[in-house]
């Protein structure tokens, strides 16, 4: 791939694009919002949802975590009353690339198949809101897909940050290293200090989502449960619902300030080598219109 071809793929998405969402759905409470947002956007004809892929989470038994993430996608689909997407929900790799060689999984298989589908116009946007295991595995097993996808990844921190330490990026360091060295067209959405500012509060969520429908009830409930577990008395509490940013980018790229940078070298600290391929990095997100679009889509009946 020449640099100009890569940069062409990194132009902001326009029109109705095809996406796959790769998610560690049960990891926290924001993936569920992102799944609901993606499904409703697909139902509204604003994008084509080609897959909901469960990725593993860190823990003693990553296979068990993967299963929980998979089941959580199904639960969200139940609350959405959108069973047709269950056929596009797949289990990803049960083991990290730091622990096992690249191995096929249902999600990887679907990613490769969809990416290679010649009927699609334009690239497939892989919106990754978890670790990189499934995506790296797919590129290792089918390197040609690098030319057919754009990876939109919520991972790492801004380049001026004091370290790269962030959950998704360090979930599977072998996968992250592979992805950062692969040259795949990538849009990076850093946690600090970009995506962490996608905050909301219980009060705002109640205002927009309370008593609207089944999925809203479910989402409110999981945030309430999370709040009960993590709140500290006397401290104002807000919650980052960062994962919706990945979906919002393909729907409303105009709400994102981005720029091209030389792909940094993955490590505990971002390393620099200005000879590397370009990628797109997100510097800020207009929170309000993104949340409004989310609320209006998921609160509809």
């Amino acid at each position: 791939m020449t640099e100009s071809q890569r940069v062409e793929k990194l132009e902001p998405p326009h029109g109705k694009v095809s996406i796959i969402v790769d998610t560690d759905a049960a990891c926290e409470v924001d993936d569920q919002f992102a799944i609901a947002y993606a499904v409703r956007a697909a139902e509204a004809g604003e994008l084509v949802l080609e897959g909901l892929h469960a990725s593993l989470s860190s823990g003693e038994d990553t296979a068990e975590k993967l299963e929980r993430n998979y089941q959580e996608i199904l639960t969200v689909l139940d609350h959405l009353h959108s069973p047709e997407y269950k056929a596009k929900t797949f289990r990803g790799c049960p083991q990290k690339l730091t622990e096992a060689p690249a191995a096929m999984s249902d999600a990887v298989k679907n990613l490769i198949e969809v990416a290679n589908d010649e009927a699609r116009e334009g690239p497939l946007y892989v919106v990754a809101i978890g670790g990189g295991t499934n995506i790296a595995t797919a590129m290792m097993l089918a390197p040609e897909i690098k030319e057919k996808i754009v990876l939109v990844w919520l991972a790492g921190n801004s380049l001026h940050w004091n370290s790269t330490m962030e959950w998704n990026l360090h979930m599977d360091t072998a996968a992250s290293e592979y992805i950062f060295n692969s040259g795949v067209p990538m849009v990076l959405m850093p946690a600090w200090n970009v995506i962490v500012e996608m905050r909301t509060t219980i009060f705002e969520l109640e205002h927009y989502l309370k008593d609207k429908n089944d999925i809203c009830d479910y989402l409110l409930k999981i945030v309430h449960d999370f709040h009960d577990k993590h709140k500290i008395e006397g401290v104002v509490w807000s919650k980052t619902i960062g994962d919706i940013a990945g979906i919002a980018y393909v729907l409303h790229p105009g709400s994102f300030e981005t720029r091209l940078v030389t792909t940094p070298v993955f490590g505990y600290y971002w390393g620099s080598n200005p000879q590397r391929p370009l990628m797109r990095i997100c510097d800020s997100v207009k929170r309000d219109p993104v949340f409004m679009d989310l609320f209006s889509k998921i609160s509809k009946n």
Partner: protein
Amino acid sequence: MTESKRVEMLELPRGPVSVIIDTDPHLETDDHYALAYAICAAELGEMKIEGLHADFSGKEVEEGMLKNYDCVINIIDLLNVPKYKEITFHGPTRKFDKENPEVTDAVKNMIRVANNHTSEDPVYVLGIGGGTTIASALAAAPEIAEKMVIVWLGGNSMHWHSSMECNFWRDSSATEFIFDCGVPLVMIPAWNVTIQLKTSSYELDHYMKNRVPEKDAICEFLLNRFNRGFDPTKVAKGSGTIYDIGGIGYVLHPEWYVTRLMVTPVFQYHWASNPQRHMMRICDHINRDALYMDVFNKLTK
């Protein structure tokens, strides 16, 4: 050490200062020029040399160090200034080990000299080789960090595609230690700074032809050293870079150096950044013509 103390020590050197030179001449040409230049400057009272330390080079640490030691003695003989033999010391016989630094004669001398200095009147350690002795002294006696300033020629500019350069990478764990320990550090990069200290056989001949008889021996030696492999039909075989004089000139004429303070990068193959770290001074440019004229004057008069 407080940041303000460090920055104070990083102010440009004033007046005749005390120096220790850490050098690896055996496989190089430029160290010989730098050593001769420094000794001539000391003889004129422009600086005080308190140590000439042999670093290692090549594959065998001890063997390489001994060869470097002999090279230093050779320069002293050619200049006929035997008193400097008393302050010429053997350096490492093995690479740096943070937990168990080797306390060589050079390390002992560095600690002794540094302890005779203060943060207001530090000794300048002019590193024109690797970092083994410097790191070992700092690891064995951390308090000397407040009594010396390291002026180290090595590595590459921050926008370079890697930090790969032989002084910084010969003993990379020593380099890492020096970059992490907070000792006041002036870095003079190879690319794209000392690489500009270019000359040619034709220029050297022109300036070193006319000299006082006492300097015949050293000039002949230095010219022959530069002209190894000379081919009058090839530009590359008649030109070269005498990097190491850049390390000596800084304490003699800091006004010839364009420098600035910056946050110390994290040393690794690709420069990495952590804006929370301590400051260092980096050199961006050297007035080549002025420096060379000073070298020629000192070597021939």
